[in-house]
Each structure stands twice: as structure tokens, then as C-alpha cells.
């Protein structure tokens, strides 16, 4: 029996020719249309979530404003093989030379799987996971000392609390989150040594109802200043303000959500960092594989102080912030115990902001009510 219609072979052949033509078309149009690099940004959630993703998207917007640079973005990309597909398509179809896959879980195994196949492309990942000799050399890690921002948050919170109890809604007990919780409490204890901080882990980065429940539970327990480390702090901020608690922001500026109750917030300053990295690429330089910074290097910034903040709190906040801006600030000073009674630092020991020991933190300091598991 013979087939006169489209055979399988013929369909495949036509398809291949068509795909080839498309490929040349897009390659030529990109070669003709631009002089600067194409930069790709991938977000794990919506880019206007008042949180982690919005902070990165603000950085992407600043890069887009640079002359000659093309920006491609994709949001709601899961930390699965999906992100590998997104990266491949940004490289192969959009001609991206620099990628910012921004979520923590994109790194292992996704970035380290895709990167070796594209040595000409630079992968920049936001967390401190890159290791010399272990990971591909076209991959870089960058991160900011946002714990210092939480320390400043805590300082204002320590001034403003009446019950002496602070609340923290946390996603997962990983080092970055634990460091934020501890820094928040240590900042508060700097101005009021009797303050405690109650932490509630929700177990996930984004769970609206559970975050609201956790915030209510903190308010029920008497906490009157609440902050958080979840991907989108919108629910925590609105719920806490609704329970008449003060709030400190995280990731981005959440002041519009609770204008009266917002004290200040620890924000990422990705516009500054990203434009600097893209400028380095345009100028033909290399971005360091391992890049860090705090207030001094412009990696983080603080939200403007809210209307409720007292003059005493404002003075203390500004003074400490000025000290941090000099660099080398030590939020962790001995003697320091964890909340199970184990010694962390001896009487004259300190962890300065750059100390690598901070990045493997697996404890909650004395004064934090909660457990890491």
C-alpha cells in the first residue's frame, strides 16, 4: 500500500527546513538590531509580589534602561527542569550572553547542568553557593549582607515595642533565614536587652493562608513588631498591620501596604548591583565569581523610616547605619549563646559581616523563641 498524502518522512523534512529558516531569521535579526548584550532574568514567582522577585525585577528594569542592552524576562518559573528550558531558550533563541536565574533553588542541579554546555554565556546566581574548582567557571554567586538590614530593623523594633516581644514569620530554617532572625533580635537587644523574638516557620517560601495564620498566632502571643522572611511579604504586612502591630519590611519597600505601621525595611538594592555587573560585561571585563557586599557596597538599602518611628529610634538607627556604611560591621559579638545554651562566641570574639562562618549558621541565638527543626 502506498501513501500519496503527507508521509512521516516528508513532514519531518519540511519541519526541519522550516525550523532552520526560522533559526537563520532570528540570528540575523539579532545581529542587526543591537550592539550591547542581551541579558536574561528568570523569577520563581510574579515579578510584582512586593518581595523577592519584585526586588530583582527592579534590578532588571534598571538594566533595561541602559543604552544598547536588551532584557528578556520570564516569571513563575519553577525550580525544576522548567528553569533549564527557560535558560536554554533564552540562550538559543534570544541570544542571551548574561543570565540572572534569581531563585535559590535554580542553582543545584539546574544552573550547574546547563552552564558547561554554554561556556560563552555567563550565569549569575543570587546566593552564596559557588565554589572554586567544584562549579563551572562561567557561573558566579553574588549576595548581600541583608542580615545587617534586619539588624537595623531590629534596632528600630527594639525601640518601638511595648510588650518586649517581637515576631518573625520565617519560611525555612536555612542559614540565610536563621541569620536574618538572629540579626533582627541582636539589633533589638542592642537597644533593649530584655527583648525576645518569637519565630514561626511556615515551611514554604510562599503560602498565603499559612503566613496569615502565623502572623495571627504571633499577634495572639503578644508580639507587637513583626517582620518576615518569605518570598512575598504582602500578606504578613497587611495581616500584622490589621492586628495593630508595627511591621518591618523585607526584600522590597512595603510601606504602601501599611503606611502608618511600617517602621523601616531591609531591601535589596539590585538596580545598583545589576547595572554594575552589566557595565562590566559591556566593557569587556569579568565579573568576580564570588561577589559580596552590604550597605557600604550598595548591595542593600533601608526603606525610609515610617511616621511612627520616635526621634530616639531614628537617632540610633542613623548612627548605626553610618557605622555600617564604613564596612566591617560586627553584629555578632561575644559572649553569645544559642537558645539551647550552646556557646557560639567567647567573650572577645566577633563575627564581622564578611565572616564566612555566618553563612553556615544553623542555630538561633539566645532570646529567640523557636527551634530550627
Amino acid at each position: 500500500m502506498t501513501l500519496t498524502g503527507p508521509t512521516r518522512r516528508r513532514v519531518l523534512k519540511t519541519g526541519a527546513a522550516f525550523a532552520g529558516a526560522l533559526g537563520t531569521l532570528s540570528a540575523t535579526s539579532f545581529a542587526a538590531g543591537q550592539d550591547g548584550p542581551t541579558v536574561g532574568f528568570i523569577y520563581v514567582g510574579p515579578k510584582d509580589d512586593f518581595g523577592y522577585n519584585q526586588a530583582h525585577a527592579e534590578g532588571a528594569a534598571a538594566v533595561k534602561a541602559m543604552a544598547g542592552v536588551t532584557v528578556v524576562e520570564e516569571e513563575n518559573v519553577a525550580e525544576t527542569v522548567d528553569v533549564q528550558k527557560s535558560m536554554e531558550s533564552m540562550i538559543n533563541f534570544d541570544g542571551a550572553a548574561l543570565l540572572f536565574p534569581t531563585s535559590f533553588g535554580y542553582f543545584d542541579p539546574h544552573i550547574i547542568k546547563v552552564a558547561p554546555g554554554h561556556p560563552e554565556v555567563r550565569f549569575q546566581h543570587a546566593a552564596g553557593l559557588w565554589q572554586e574548582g567544584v562549579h563551572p567557571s562561567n557561573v558566579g554567586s553574588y549576595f548581600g549582607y541583608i542580615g545587617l538590614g534586619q539588624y537595623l530593623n531590629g534596632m528600630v523594633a527594639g525601640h518601638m515595642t511595648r510588650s518586649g516581644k517581637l515576631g518573625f514569620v520565617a519560611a525555612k530554617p536555612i542559614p540565610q533565614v536563621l541569620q536574618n532572625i538572629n540579626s533582627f533580635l541582636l539589633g533589638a537587644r542592642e537597644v533593649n536587652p530584655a527583648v525576645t523574638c518569637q519565630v514561626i516557620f511556615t515551611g514554604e517560601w510562599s503560602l498565603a493562608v499559612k503566613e496569615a495564620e502565623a502572623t495571627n498566632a504571633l499577634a495572639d502571643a503578644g508580639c507587637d513588631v513583626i517582620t518576615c522572611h518569605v518570598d512575598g511579604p504582602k500578606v504578613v504586612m497587611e495581616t500584622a498591620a490589621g492586628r495593630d502591630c508595627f511591621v518591618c519590611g523585607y526584600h522590597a519597600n512595603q510601606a504602601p501596604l501599611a503606611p502608618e505601621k511600617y517602621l523601616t525595611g531591609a531591601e535589596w538594592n539590585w538596580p545598583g548591583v545589576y547595572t554594575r555587573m552589566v557595565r562590566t560585561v559591556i566593557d569587556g571585563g569579568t565579573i568576580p565569581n564570588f561577589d559580596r557586599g552590604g550597605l557600604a557596597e550598595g548591595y542593600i538599602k533601608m526603606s525610609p523610616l515610617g511616621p511612627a518611628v520616635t526621634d530616639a529610634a531614628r537617632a540610633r538607627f542613623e548612627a548605626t547605619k553610618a557605622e555600617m556604611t564604613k564596612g566591617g560591621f560586627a553584629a555578632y559579638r561575644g559572649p553569645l549563646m544559642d537558645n539551647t545554651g550552646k556557646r557560639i562566641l567567647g567573650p572577645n570574639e566577633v563575627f564581622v559581616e564578611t565572616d564566612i562562618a555566618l553563612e553556615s549558621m544553623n542555630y538561633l541565638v539566645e532570646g529567640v523563641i523557636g527551634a530550627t527543626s
Partner: protein
Amino acid sequence: MNGTELGLWAIPLAILGGAIRVSTPFLFVSLGEVLTERSGRINLGLEGTLVFGAMSGYAIACVTGLPWAGVLAAAGAGSLFGLVHGLVCSLPRVNDIAVGISLMLLGTGLAYFFGKPFIQPVAPDLPALELGWWSDLPQVQAALRVNVLFPVGILAALLLWWMFRATRIGLLVRVVGDSTDAARAMGLRPAFIRTLATAAGGAFAGVGGAYLSLFYPGSWNEGISSGQGLMAVALVIFARWNPIACLGAALLFGGAGALGPALQSVGIPDGYYLFYAMPYVMTLGVLIATSSPGRAMAGAPGELSISK
């Protein structure tokens, strides 16, 4: 300290508060699903309807400034989704479960697409009844801050129960759900009645979504539902297709969900992942405890594709 320390009393209070706050979407979606399944169809798409209801309710409340207009819009959008499900399933040889799953994906996808501009704006919340006015404790006041939709849901559960039991409409739905042949012999149009029941069920699910975005947690974003719509469909089986039992199941689920945060807040932090699994463990436990080989699927409508 400020004299509002509750100690371990905080736990039952939190469970009560959580039961009231968290249960409402479960209640509405499961009531909608009871109505649909009693007519002989399964609509698995209610998760998508819930998310679309949350989005459309928030969007309309944002634009008009009227939260109740948002609830109406959510109900309307929900019934539209139900209508589509009902009509498609009325075609010959269409599987209601497959249609439900595709509508679930369509609903969430459309909600994300149309909901994009409404993530940032703040919509007015639905009003709450302050049933804790008699107490001086802020915790009690907060726990008894009940949204109007909660008593409406209780009323709806009672009405549905009465409808199935004592009214002509209830009888029609039940006949259609128990035997297509018997319904035809009586001169009824099963497909028509099922389509109406599915549309009404969709409206319930839409209102459940509006509760999420307009009261608790009270904002629209793409992660607003953590599977409430799907769990509610399971709760219907748990509740043996009885609207009153749905109310109980929703309250139980809400209360168990509040246990994890409440225990951490009174300083019992160990094993919170286990406590977060509590609602599911309890569901499993009750299902096992109430099951028996003799009367499996007791109360299930005869025309349901899972019991046929």
C-alpha cells in the same frame, strides 16, 4: 509584660480562630461540590474556579470600591465556569473528570493572566462581625472577628441540607444523581438539571475564592490558593455528600491547620512539619475509622463516575 499572656490557653483559642478564619473557602467549595456531585457529576475544576473567583472578586472590588460587588462577580464567574463544565459534559462520551482537570488549569491560567494588573493595588475588604466584643482580651476579639460570609456559609449548608431532604428541587437533583434511567422515566432532563447544578456549584466555589482575596488573607496574588479547591473536593467524600457534615469537615480542617503556627507561638516548636501535616493525617484517620467493607461509599450518588 502587658497582662495578655494566655499560656497554653492560646492553643484552643487559636484552633477556634483558625477554624473560623480558614474554613470558609473549604466550606463554600465543598458545598458547591456536594450540589454538583449529588446531581451525578464530579467537577474537579473547582480549584481553578476558586482561583478565578479570587481574582475576579478582587479585581471588581478594586475597580468599583465595593467588596460585595466583588463577591457577586466571583459568583457570576464561578457559575460561568460551572456552566461550561456542565455543557461540555452533556455531550456524549465526555469524561467529567478530564473536563474538570482541564477547566482547573484553564481557570488558574486565566486568573493569572487577567490578575496581573491587580497584584499591587489594594482592594477594600469585606466587613467583619466583631463577635468578641464581650471580651477584653485582644486575642479573643481577634479570634471571633468573623466574616459575614462565614454565617452565610453555615446558612447555605443548612439550606442545602433542607433542600435535599424536603424540597422538590432537592428531590429532582437526587433522582438525576442516583439514576439517569429513573429520571428519564419520570420525564426529567438529566443533562439539563446536572448543568444547572454544576453552574450553581461553580458559583459557590467562586464565592469561596472571593473570601480568600477579599477577607483572609485578603489580597490577590498567584499563590493565594494552596490547593483549597482540590482539598474541598476530597472533603465532600469525607463528608459523605452531606452539607451539614461538610460544615463540620471544613471547621475540622481549618482548626487543624491552625495547630502548627499556634504550637510554635506558645513555644512548642519541635516537629512543625508534622503539625502542618495534621489536617491530612486527620482526614486519613477519620476515613479509615469510618470505612467498612460492608458499606463502602455510603451516601454516594449512584450516577457518580467514581461509584458506578
